[in-house]
């Protein structure tokens, strides 16, 4: 289990490096991808679904929140703690929303994820925009949202695939 979270931490670090350097060249009308936020959203959503009935695992999710917030602030111009605080609030909101869902069908999981991702992305950018005095909800913002949604959906399926492979291997051990 700890190996999984170590891999997640490394993935977040790599995402922050790629976001600050490689993805800066791939912008759509000046909108770049926020890979750290995408990784955070995918991991937290998936872990909240998996640990829905296991509240004792929450401290590992908190660690993911703290690490993701730390790396989001590391390569940004903001002080340490801002992204951690926003991510923590978003995590609690996502956790509560998932807790109160009666049933989560595996088939439409992506719809639930995107329904959580879009408002979370909006909230994160709204807070950063207000702080940096650069909040604009215009066409460019919706292009940025669409760009990040595509990236998040791709990463969501990738994460799901890895998880299904891992689950398959675990089952084989018992046969």
């Amino acid at each position, binding site marked *: 289990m700890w190996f999984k979270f170590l891999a997640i931490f490394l993935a977040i670090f790599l995402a922050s490096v790629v976001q600050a350097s490689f993805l800066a060249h791939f912008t759509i009308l000046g909108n770049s991808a926020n890979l750290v936020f995408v990784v955070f959203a995918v991991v937290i959503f998936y872990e909240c679904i998996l640990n829905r009935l296991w509240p004792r695992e929450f401290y590992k999710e908190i660690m993911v929140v703290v690490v993701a917030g730390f790396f989001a602030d590391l390569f*940004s111009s903001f*002080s340490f703690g801002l992204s951690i605080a926003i991510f923590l609030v978003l995590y609690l909101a996502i956790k509560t929303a998932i807790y109160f869902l009666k049933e989560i069908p595996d088939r439409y999981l992506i719809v639930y994820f995107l329904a959580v991702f879009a408002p979370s992305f909006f909230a994160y950018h709204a807070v950063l925009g207000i702080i940096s005095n650069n909040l604009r909800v215009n066409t460019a913002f919706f292009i940025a949202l669409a760009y990040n949604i595509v990236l998040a959906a791709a990463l969501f399926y990738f994460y799901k695939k890895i998880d299904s492979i891992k689950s398959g291997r675990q089952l084989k051990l018992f046969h």
Partner: protein
Amino acid sequence: MKKVLGKAYQISMDCQICVSFLSRGTIDNYFMNLYAKKKNYFVRNVIISLVGLALFMAVMNFFEQPIKNAAHVVSAPMLKSFWQAGASSSQFLGSFFSNGSLQAESSNLKQENAKLAAHVIALQGLVRQTQTAAEFSQNVASNLSGLQVQVIGLDEEHDIATLNAGSAQGIVENMPVVSGHNVLYGKILKVYKNFSTVALISNSLSALDVKIQTLELTTSAVRGVIKGSGKLGIYLDLISLNASIQAGDILATSALDGIYPKDLLVGKIVSVNKDDAKPFQTASAQPFFDIKTADNLFVITDYKR
């Protein structure tokens, strides 16, 4: 002996619980107490976690400089390689996608060529002035010494670039950053030991005084303020309504703000927005800087304000 005493203590506690059952007469009360205790523990844990997190953030902010510097030193080789890989990949993809629009671009170029031919005669008169400006510009560059740096990262959301040199190399805050061709990029925002960040002139908080070098020789110098509109865009503001400006006019620094040297190239006017109801006219401008293709930049280290 300790084990025996511990066991005896546990038995006595169990007896006390049994007595409490009997005295209260119901088991429900016991479980209610347990639930309340558990709830108290939860509240206590949440408070401890929040206090711990606040302390963690305070410590991180206190050691922000060394932490960020260490992280950049560790990740600098990765940042540099990813930056170069991104630049070459985007160029390749850009040329791939632009293939389809080559015909449209060709016809546009023909039209533009005809217009340019008409302008040649008018421009001949300005050659002398341009030569003088070029000489002056060269003088500015030769009078100032610059530290060569490399761009290793970009936060386009906030128009902040990362450079691979910091206070160890003699960089301090507010130093101007230019290219080899005297194109202004911005000023140093934050300095760490081994790296620094640059607030580009397109940063939404950036504003600098500029001279508008009009094509008409007779007109007096026009001044305005270049403001950042975010996402690598700029616009010209606070131009007098009487001033005659047009698309294509060149913008250069005026040195009035005391941060940037005189005559650094900023951009050119794309379109003018004149409204008599407003006290000033504004203009859309295209910056000369291109942070994504810029590899080597110069930080002017000895500009005397």
